[in-house]
């Protein structure tokens, strides 16, 4: 469950012939339970890719498929974690997390159990009755992740989820996400402009070109991660020190640099 497929996807904003082309011929296959990060220069349309999988945005040409079905509308099989958290400010942490389960009419006992589990998993138990505005940014994003995770979605879509967090919190959240991915692996599409983050988290990193965006290169991280045993390290900085990590990071950097130079020139 959870394969994502971009099949020759194009996106034009505005009118079909006079609008501007945001995406062109995007092809990408994400396997079940694979963690793929998309990196690219700003404005390249990477967020648009995610929004099309979520069902927030239509495609202008081609197809986006999840589990071999064309995406038509948003749904709880594809949970989204937003950069700006998008928690419901009038609901407590607990109410935010259980909202999706209530939509699904999950019986109360089961619902409470699921919510308690995810509160524990995300170490949010002591904040269960707090309102979002009473929490730090990192805590709010934990709630947003818990809200997505509790639905046991086929696909987790993360749109620069740590972009609004400070550097320290960001690192903690990245480690947390790796921990979650080990406990409960699932298909993740992760959008970021931070190359280190992409290399640290993803099985594969897809590099997008500048607008009109297309997938210019897909880099395999998993093989290196496994052979060099990155998962054996507890801390992100230890992994980031490894030669294998630096090598991959530099390679992606160079590829992105070409795009930036092209934009500036």
């Amino acid at each position, binding site marked *: 469950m959870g394969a994502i497929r971009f099949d020759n996807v194009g996106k034009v904003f505005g009118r079909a012939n006079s609008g501007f082309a945001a995406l062109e011929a995007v092809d990408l296959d994400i396997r079940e339970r694979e963690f793929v990060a998309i990196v690219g220069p700003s404005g390249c349309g990477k967020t648009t890719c995610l929004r099309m999988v979520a069902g927030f945005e239509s495609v202008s040409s081609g197809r986006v498929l999840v589990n071999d079905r064309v995406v038509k509308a948003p*749904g709880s099989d594809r949970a989204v974690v937003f950069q700006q958290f*998008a928690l*419901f400010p009038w609901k407590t942490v607990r109410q935010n997390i259980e909202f999706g389960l209530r939509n699904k009419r999950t019986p109360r006992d089961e619902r409470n159990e699921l919510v308690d589990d995810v509160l524990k998993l995300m170490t949010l138990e002591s904040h269960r009755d707090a309102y979002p505005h009473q929490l730090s940014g990192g805590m709010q994003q934990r709630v947003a992740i818990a809200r997505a995770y509790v639905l046991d979605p086929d696909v987790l879509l993360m749109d620069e989820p740590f972009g609004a967090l400070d550097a320290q919190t960001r690192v903690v959240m990245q480690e947390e996400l790796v921990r979650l991915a080990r406990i409960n692996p699932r298909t993740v599409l992760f959008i970021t402009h931070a190359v280190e983050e992409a290399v640290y988290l993803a099985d594969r990193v897809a590099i997008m070109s500048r607008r009109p965006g297309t997938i210019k290169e897909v880099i395999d991280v998993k093989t290196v991660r496994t052979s060099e045993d990155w998962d054996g390290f507890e801390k992100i900085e230890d992994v980031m020190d490894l030669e294998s990590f630096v090598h991959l990071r530099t390679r992606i950097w160079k590829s992105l640099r070409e795009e930036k130079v092209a934009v500036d020139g």
Partner: protein
Amino acid sequence: MEERPLYLTSTLLYGFAGLVVFFGVWFVLPTTGLVPVQFLPSPITVAERVATLTTNRFAGATLPAHIAYSFTRFISGFALAALIGIPLGLLMGWFRIVDEIAGPIFDGLRFIAPIAWVPFAALWFGTGIGGPIMIIFAGAFPPCVINAYRGARQVDPRLIEAAEMLGTSDMRMMTNILLPASVPSIVAGLRVAAGLGWQSLVGAELIVASTGVGFMMVQAQANVATSTVMSGMVAIGIVGLLIDIILRWGEAAIRRRRGLNA
């Protein structure tokens, strides 16, 4: 932050000065004979009249009883306006089709002053409780609809997307997302609705009622009992102010709970 107490003090001071001048002029004009007392009774005469009316009947009831009649009508019409207007506003805000169907009708009707409904109110509902309620409804309904509609349209689109990806049905979208997100706008609308409703009520009672503060005032006017007319005005002002204070307090409480500045 240190300037705040000073600012508060001067605000109170100016407010107090304004009241002193207001009552001063009001007191001086009739007592010096500049204006005949039957045209403008002094504040003291009015205060005495208010006190008398709390126990003595005029136009069939004491002043508190008239206020109670008026207030019952007000609450009925206001509640009806909120109960119908808020859901309609949210529906118009969420479903484009509802907006397109109801929008033009509503936009046309809302410019008809509540008091213009008096002939129909009298014709359809009579002078009992129904007529005045319809007129209050006519006053209070538009702000309820408009503010619920605006509130629904201005919900952060990210919250709507978040709800959509959580599999929210249209019904739950309105009750759990649009409604709570619009509460600040709706409460602001309720304040306007209460003001308009309360004003329309008294206007309506002048014409289509046999009890209530407005009715009392018409009867007093017929008897050239100006101090009684003014007692009614005082009652209207005070009750209106109390309604607004309660709603403002509710608005502030909601904003505090949301972590917004009160």
